[in-house]
């Protein structure tokens, strides 16, 4: 069964991917995000996606995680396909299905002339879905191969203040507890005859019914946790030391350098190309860049 646990929990192994420093992973992710956002070329986008997927192979990801990944990717790409099939606004476009015909009362007017499913939109959605799919996959790979506290240390190493890191780790720690509590709250109400599926005016009541006990419990818990944390000298000092010290290995340095360099290059090339295509800036000296960006990026 694919549940919150299979989404959230990392699998700790000793692979190339696992051994990467969390800071390196975060920087690689950020670099990849920039690349993914910059790319337009279908083949290159697909290549990027394949490269990201190969990370899962290198990390020897267990089957349940792969299943989860596939499910999430299918949902994501399907979502993009579906929305783009409706809103595709490029030509040519071929209507394959009419959802709201232009002369349908009110809705026809509201939707500015009907709503259709366009064949080309499906294709566009699938291509653009690759972009978010690459980002999602790499994010998951990072999470699944990094212990959350290492990630936290990584963030602190990247100058995220400890107080913030503390909040995040607290949030992570309480996540399974709160998920269980939310499930319990829903069950309690169902056993008392309440049907949360009921749509309409009751929906706000339902949301409040779920939130009230859950948050009230959190508020109550807050007092104890805060006192417990304070009694352990939290924020008593300007600085703090750390038991775990992250080490940036040579491989980390090389990988990060390559990724960051590649990302910066791609982003700059793409920017230059976009300035050229928008008629903002052109110089003949940059022609090779225009050619590369136009052809491959």
């Amino acid at each position, binding site marked *: 069964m694919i549940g919150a646990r299979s989404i959230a929990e990392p699998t700790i192994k000793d692979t190339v991917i696992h051994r990467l420093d969390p800071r390196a992973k975060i920087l690689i992710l950020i670099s990849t995000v920039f690349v993914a956002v910059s790319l337009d070329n279908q083949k290159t986008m697909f290549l990027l996606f394949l490269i990201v997927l190969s990370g899962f192979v290198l990390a020897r990801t267990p089957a349940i995680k792969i299943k989860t990944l596939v499910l999430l990717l299918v949902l994501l790409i399907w979502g993009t396909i579906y929305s783009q099939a409706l809103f595709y606004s490029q030509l040519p476009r071929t209507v394959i299905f009419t959802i709201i015909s232009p002369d349908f009362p009110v809705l026809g007017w509201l939707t500015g002339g009907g709503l259709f499913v366009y064949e080309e939109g499906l294709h566009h959605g699938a291509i653009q879905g690759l972009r978010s799919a690459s980002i999602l996959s790499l994010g998951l790979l990072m999470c699944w191969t990094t212990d959350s506290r290492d990630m936290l240390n990584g963030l602190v190493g990247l100058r995220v203040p400890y107080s913030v890191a503390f909040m995040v780790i607290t949030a992570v720690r309480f996540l399974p507890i709160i998920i269980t509590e939310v499930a319990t709250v829903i069950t309690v109400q169902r056993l*008392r005859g309440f*049907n949360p599926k009921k749509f309409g005016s009751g929906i706000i009541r339902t949301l409040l019914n779920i939130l009230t006990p859950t948050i009230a419990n959190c508020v109550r818990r807050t007092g104890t*946790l805060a006192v417990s944390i304070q009694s352990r000298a939290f924020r008593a000092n300007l600085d703090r030391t*750390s038991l775990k010290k992250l080490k940036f290995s040579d491989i980390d340095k090389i990988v990060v350098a390559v990724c960051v360099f590649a990302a910066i290059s791609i982003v700059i090339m793409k920017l230059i190309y976009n300035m050229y295509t928008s008629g903002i800036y052109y110089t003949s000296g940059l022609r090779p860049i225009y050619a590369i960006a136009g052809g491959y990026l």
Partner: protein
Amino acid sequence: MVCGCGTMIEIKDLWYTYPGRSEPTLKGINLRVEKGEFVLLTGPTGCGKSTLLKTLNGIIPHESGGIFSGSVKVKGMETTDSNHMEISKEVGLVFQNPDDQIFSTIVEDEVAFGPENLCFEQKEIDRKVEDALQIVGMSDHRFASTNSLSGGQKQRICIASMLAMVPEVLAMDEPISQMDPVGTHEVLNTVRELNRKLKTTILLVEHRLHELAPFVDRIVVMDDGKIVFDQPASKAFDHLEIFYRLGLRIPEPVELCHSLGIKASPLSVSGALAVLNREYFKENTGISQPPPNPEENTGVKTSSRKASVENNAFENNIFGNNTSENNASIISIQDLWSGYEKNKMVLKGINLEIRKGERVAIMGTNGSGKSTLLLHLAAILKPYKGNVKVFGEDTRSKNPYSFAGKVGFVFQNPDLMLFCDSVEEETRFGPVQLKYSDIEERVRNSLEAMSILPLRHDLPQALSRGQRLRTAVASVISINPELILLDEPTTGQDRVNIEQMMDFFKNNNSTLIFCTHDVEVAMSYATRILVMNDGQIIADGKGKEVIKDTESLRKASLTQPPVVEIANYLGVNAFSVKELVKTLTSRTVEGIKC
């Protein structure tokens, strides 16, 4: 136990009022605790004992605000004048629910948190973490996920996270009240070791006086913001009036001796047997093998309840089952297997038949499958294998909503059951949803039954812990379900609330299934006890039968109540102090006659 090395805590004329309140919570507290002392601070709910603990490391008033007067000195340092870091080093705080104290996902991080904040060097932190984990016996779990630990282990981690800062004082606020017997055992063992070996001064707040009394040097009782009693443990039970008056549970051996008119306050079974041997029954009983010293065997000893409920066990076992035996079957479980993962089944082949009118207590350690079994009965979980039939309907095709109105469920944390704007609304919610006709009557009856009618306009979430439990119960009984399921309703609750709830169910002849760690509650209210271990039912029968089955109890980390243990050693059949007293008295009379 007192080493006399100097005063560790000195509180003089301490008054404290929380912000926004007019009535002070602490009213002129004077207390002196010596280094290495183990002090039990007890008293009824709301007496101010937890507040007093928070003054020890300056959280009150530094963080909380409010009106503070008087003096609190720890190791000669005035807490109001000292900085947070200095005080933090000296006083460690441990609270009731370990889940509310642990913020890290990994044990090591949790324990290292304090030393890191105190800016120790990396090596020093590493050493302190190792030492602290070793002291609490959790070295093997250094890299474990905090979520994977049991309650007792978590609490030990909480203690370790304080110990890593090497405090002179460990102030603990009801650290065992939410523990199962194993957890309680683990925590108390740890605390005792700390006190003995490291000479750590312990100030422990707990209302389970009867369980703690054998371990402490001194008992301090608070009531209404004041210290009303302060005696060494050995002399504390010479006069029981104050304990009775404040509703505090007295160790069964003490109660037994006092009921027999013996002027002694033995805190353990062996002590009681020694006294009994010496005083009256030497010739008659002929104890051949005295039980081990409780200080060596720190297994939890549950004790007796006040006289009014003592007859329960007797009644339950004599009449309870007989009346329900012919009743219709409500629950029928056949070969139930259940679990979240295929290779980690929580329930392994459960077969069970429960009839209308039965009150079934399910006992066992955490993880034994009690709660999972209960969840199956409300169709919240579905069997992996086997059948669960509730009211003749297979739960596989049902959801909790299908049993709404028939099955009432009170969860371990009643707070999760309260979501309405007032107590009355909370009680009305179920009947309204189920479109019952006599709503007002149901609401009124259930509020009255739980004695919360005067609170009916109050916000449920803002009530006290006991009142919240009673509101949650009222919200269930207003539906008048045919089957009531209670998941560890006694956890963290004080006696009055537990009794009120259980008495209602008993008097109402409800079909009741409840999970509990409390042998005493099970004996008092259940017509039948199931003992579970590792997903299986290892004992099933009337209370008296099960309580005698020491092997099953041992497997489930349960122990007999001291009075049953004493009765066993004495070779008599008794399950409560009253029964034992009656038996022993009659035997003495017979002996005299002879």
